[in-house]
Structures are given as C-alpha cells and as structure tokens.
C-alpha cells in the first residue's frame, strides 16, 4: 500500500516536470506579450526597457531556467494586467470554480446513478432503452448550447433562476463561497447543471453497466432467495458494489470538470478560474496562462492521488490485497 502510493508520487513529480517544459515553450510560441503591454506609439527605448524589466531580452533557455527556478519557489510571475502574482490571482478565483465543479459533480451523481441503476434493471425494456438514448444527448450536446438553452428556459422564460454572476457569497475558511448561501446557491444551479450534464450521461452509462453485471451475480440471487425486496437489492446490494467504480471515475473526472468550466463560466459570466483564463488569453497575460495550466496539472495529480486512497478505503477487498503487494 505505502509502496504503491510512493510510486504514484514519483510518477506525479515526473509528470509535473514534463508539463512545465510543455507549458513554457507552448505559451512562448503564442505571440509577443510586449505588443499588448506597450502602447503602439512608445519609443524604441521604452520598448527595450519594458523588455528588460520582464526579462524578454534574454535568450529562451535563460528565460526557461529562470522560470523553473522561480516556479520551484512557487513564483510563476506577475500578471501583466492585474499586477498581482499570477498564482495568487488564480487562487483567488479558484474557490468559485471548485464549488461549481463540486456541485456539478453532485448533480451528475444525483441524476446519473438513479437513471443508470434503473436503466440497468430494465435493460431490455423500453424504459432502459429510453434512458440510454437520452444519455447520448448528454454526451453530444455542446456545453455552451446547453447553457444557453437552460438560460433561455429557466431565466428568460420561466424567470425561476438567475443566469449570470455569483450572487451572495459567504466567507468560509477565508474563501468567498456561494454554495453556503441560499441566494448564491440559486446562482449556481444553472451553471452547475450545465456542467453536470455530460458527466451525468457518463455516470448513467457506468451505473447501468455496473447494475447489469451485479444483477447477474450470485449474491443478488441469494439476496432474492432471502426474500429481500427488489428495492433493497438495488439500493443496498447493487448500489454499494457499483459505487466503487463510479466514484473512481468521477474523482478522475473532477479535473476535466474544472477544465470544462472554462466554457460554462464564460456562458454564465461566473467569475472563476475558467473565465480568468479566457480573459488572460485575450490579453496574452502570459504568467496567468502558465500559472493556470500548472495549477490545473497539480490539481489533476492531487485528485488522482486522493481517488486512489478513497478507492482503497471504500473497497474492503482492496485493503487486504493492497497490503499483500
């Protein structure tokens, strides 16, 4: 178990270094930020001065070594636009994205698990087929389109829910969060649903496949032989078995949920990291883009790691097997 986790940790560090290289050179290619930082009518001397201040006059490899050196100290540069350190800037936008992703995840489980279990239970009937057909829409409809449709229905037509912004926030552990205030929660519902739709389809499929497999197992037949109701068999015996793979996959998907948030946040003007990224790309705010990409990688790594640990805790069989290896 410990050996396994240490090995995973080493892999993660390797991935991190590889990502640093890719990100730095990738972003370096996308244009000269000086064009944006300096007004077109600046004198050549001013241009040179600015270049020197940001270190753009140095050769690429020197810039890269400096970048690595600073990055190891947690410094990914200052935003050209906001003047703040990029990492700090992103972290201040992060809570909004995380709470959105989390609520999205909760929605996708709440929608996907019941639908999937039911579809697996009625696999050969029209109900099961209808749910599966429906899940194809969840996969194929583009995020921004779903978002706009939801805005159109629930915000414009029915006027039930607000469509843009964060609403009231509450300070929890030093972070401003909407999820703990009734007003803020209202603002979260539509973007979180938009974000959840794709994952809900995924969860539906996973839950259906898991349910179908579980229903063929002897322990389900034995549960029936004990005289348990079908509901109890599905909700306790089947669910407990299929939640392990679902949680694993969902945990891994939390990262891509944050990535997906880019589009959703833009549609709903949700002030999270995703929106910050889009804004930074339009202004070529290089340090923010780099910091965003690096932080995303770190988040992915942390998530994968946590999932491994949770998985071990959830499945009593893995605990033992893990100890043996």
């Amino acid at each position, binding site marked *: 178990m410990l050996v396994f986790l240490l090995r995973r940790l080493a892999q993660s560090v390797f991935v991190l270094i590889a990502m640093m290289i890719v990100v730095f050179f990738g972003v370096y290619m996308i244009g000269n930020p000086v064009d944006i930082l300096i007004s077109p009518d600046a004198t050549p001397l001013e241009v040179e001065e600015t270049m020197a201040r940001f270190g753009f006059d140095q050769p690429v490899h020197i810039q890269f070594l400096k970048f690595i050196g600073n990055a190891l100290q947690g410094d990914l540069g200052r935003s050209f636009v906001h003047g703040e350190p990029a990492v700090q800037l992103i972290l201040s936008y992060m809570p909004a994205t995380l709470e959105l992703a989390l609520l999205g995840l909760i929605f996708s489980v709440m929608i996907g698990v019941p639908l999937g279990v039911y579809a697996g239970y009625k696999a050969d009937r029209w109900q099961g087929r209808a749910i599966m057909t429906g899940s194809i829409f969840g996969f194929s409809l583009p995020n921004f389109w779903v978002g706009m449709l939801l805005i159109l229905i629930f915000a414009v037509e029915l006027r039930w829910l607000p469509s843009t912004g964060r609403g009231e926030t509450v300070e929890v552990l030093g972070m401003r969060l909407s999820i703990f205030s009734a007003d803020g929660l209202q603002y979260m519902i539509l973007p979180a649903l938009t974000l959840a739709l794709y994952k809900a389809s995924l969860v539906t499929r996973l839950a259906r496949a898991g349910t179908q497999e579980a229903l063929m*197992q*002897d*322990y389900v*037949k*034995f*549960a*029936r*032989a*004990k*005289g*348990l*109701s079908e509901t*109890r068999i599905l909700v*306790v*015996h089947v669910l*407990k*078995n299929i939640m*392990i793979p679902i949680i694993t996959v969902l945990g891994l998907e939390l990262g891509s949920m944050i990535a997906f948030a880019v589009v959703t946040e833009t549609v709903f003007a949700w002030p999270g990291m995703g929106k910050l990224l889009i804004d930074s790309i339009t202004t070529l705010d290089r340090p923010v883009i780099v910091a965003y990409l690096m932080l995303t990688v770190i988040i992915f790594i942390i998530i994968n790691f946590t999932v491994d640990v949770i998985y071990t805790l959830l*499945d*009593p*069989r893995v605990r*033992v097997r893990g100890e043996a290896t």
Partner: protein
Amino acid sequence: MSVLDVRDLQTHFFTDAGVVKAVDGVSFSLDAGEVLGLVGESGSGKSVTGFSILRLVDAPGRVVGGQINFKGQDLATLSNREMRSLRGNRIAMIFQDPMMTLNPVLRIETQMVEAVRAHHRVSHAAAKDRAIRVLARVGIPSPADRLAAYPHQFSGGMRQRVAIAIALLNGPDLIVADEPTTALDVTIQSQILAEVQELARETGTALIWITHDLAVVAGLADKVSVMYAGRIVESGPTDDVLTAPGHPYTEGLLGSIPGHGRRGERLTQIPGMAPNMARLPVGCAFAPRCHRVDETCRAKAPAITDIGPKRGLRCFHPIVETEGAA
C-alpha cells in the same frame, strides 16, 4: 400433509441453440423433518429444480409445466409479493458456491439482519441477537465479534456456515441445500452435514440435499431421487436404493464410490460423457452410456414405473436382485 409436493415439474431454457429441457417432468414429495437427497452428475438439472421451487429461475429459463405445492399452496398461483414473503422465511436455499453467495461489500451483520427484518418487524438489535445465536449453532466461534467482518475475512468453510446460518435464520419449513459442502474439505464437510441434519431433525424442517455424491446421501437422507438429463430415473428409500439399485445409472454412480461394493473390486467409472442437454437422444437419455441398452431403449423413452413400496424407476431393463446374484 406433506410440506412440499412437486408434480411433473418442467423447467426449460429457451436458448439460441434450441430449447433445453433442464427439468423435464420431475416429481417428488417431502414430509416435515424428512431429508431428500437429489443426486446426479453435473448438468442433470439439480440446481434448476431447486431454483424452480423458489421461483428464481433466470432467463432464458422458465417453469413451463407441472405443479409445486408448498403446504397445500400452489406456488405458481402466488403473487410476486406473496412469493417473496415465503423466500428466506418459509423456504430457504443454500447456494452451491460459498465464495459467491455473500455480497463482498456488505458486513455479515448487514446481510443477516436484513434477512430477519425482511420478514419480521423486529428491531435491529433483536435481529442481531438472533443472528448471533444461529451463527453459534453452525459452529462459528465468537459470533458476536465476527458479525462486523466482511465475507473475504472468512474462509470458504466459514462462509458456507454463514450461508447456512442465513438459511436457518427464520426457522424455515423447507431448506434447499445445493451441494453446500462440495467446495469444502472432507472433515468440515461431514461436520456441517451432521450439524444440518441435527438442526433439521430438531425443528422439523424438511431438507432437499442436492449432491452429485451418493456417499454423502447415504448417511444423511431418508430417501433419494437420482436425476439424469432433467429426469428422475430412480427414487426410493435411501437404504433400498443404495443396496439394490434398479437403474443402470444408479449402479454406475455406486460403482464410482470408494469403499462401496465388494472388497477387491475395482472402482468403475460410468463410461461416456454427460449428455448434451440441447440434443438428447429420442429414446432413453442414458442409452449411449448404458451397458444394458437394446433397440427398445433407443426407440422410445421409458416412463417411470413403481417397482415396490415408494420406489420408482425409469428403465426398460432394470437390474433385479436375482439377476445380480447370478
């Protein structure tokens, strides 16, 4: 009145390869406290017979004919809800594979308590109490502590004891025990056999003991039914059938038991292979492997005939006492 009366049971599987008559006209009956041994090779339809009684035959299988009367009630006429209230309560079943029957992610406590509370309005604590008592009865040491364990923390033998305990939980009138000891080693096997037999005697529970091993039946069952290719080919009181088998197949099964028959005789195997259930011969299903076969056997299938008190036989040329001596 008998506890269970099965008449001409037919359970067929409708597969792509054709209709498999897994159970084809099986009849037997059981009184309270009586033990029936249901014996036959692999694939002869023993498990399917058991599942048919509980109405738990999986698709593409279906009970297509016959009657199952449980304490005077035709089970086919019960609603799903009524049937469920019998399962695990009045009729219990112990499955063949102890490794697969318990849910791997639920504690033993959960799996036992739910079995009690599915049928009785009792508190969790009361159900747990009962679970502890029954676990102790089937020989699980310190049952109160073991309740918190998961199935994988038990050995195969212990798991099978738990499965047996679950079957006993609600004091059923009938237990279908599907080869519950084959996966275990011989000493544990006989230990469990003795315990279950004693429990059945005490409580008046009728028992169907499914096995492919006639030797197991010898010490345990009051009567046996020998199954071949979905049919009962011979039935009768255990001692009679074992000492004077009438059907060549029963004789063959006896011949493959060590220690049975005269000393110095070699163990005999039944020649040939278990039949392909999807394409049985027109006549007697045992004909391709039978040493007494003739044209009659190949032309049509023998019907079951009574050959004495409580003895039935499905064969045109049964082995008779005098002939055996000659």
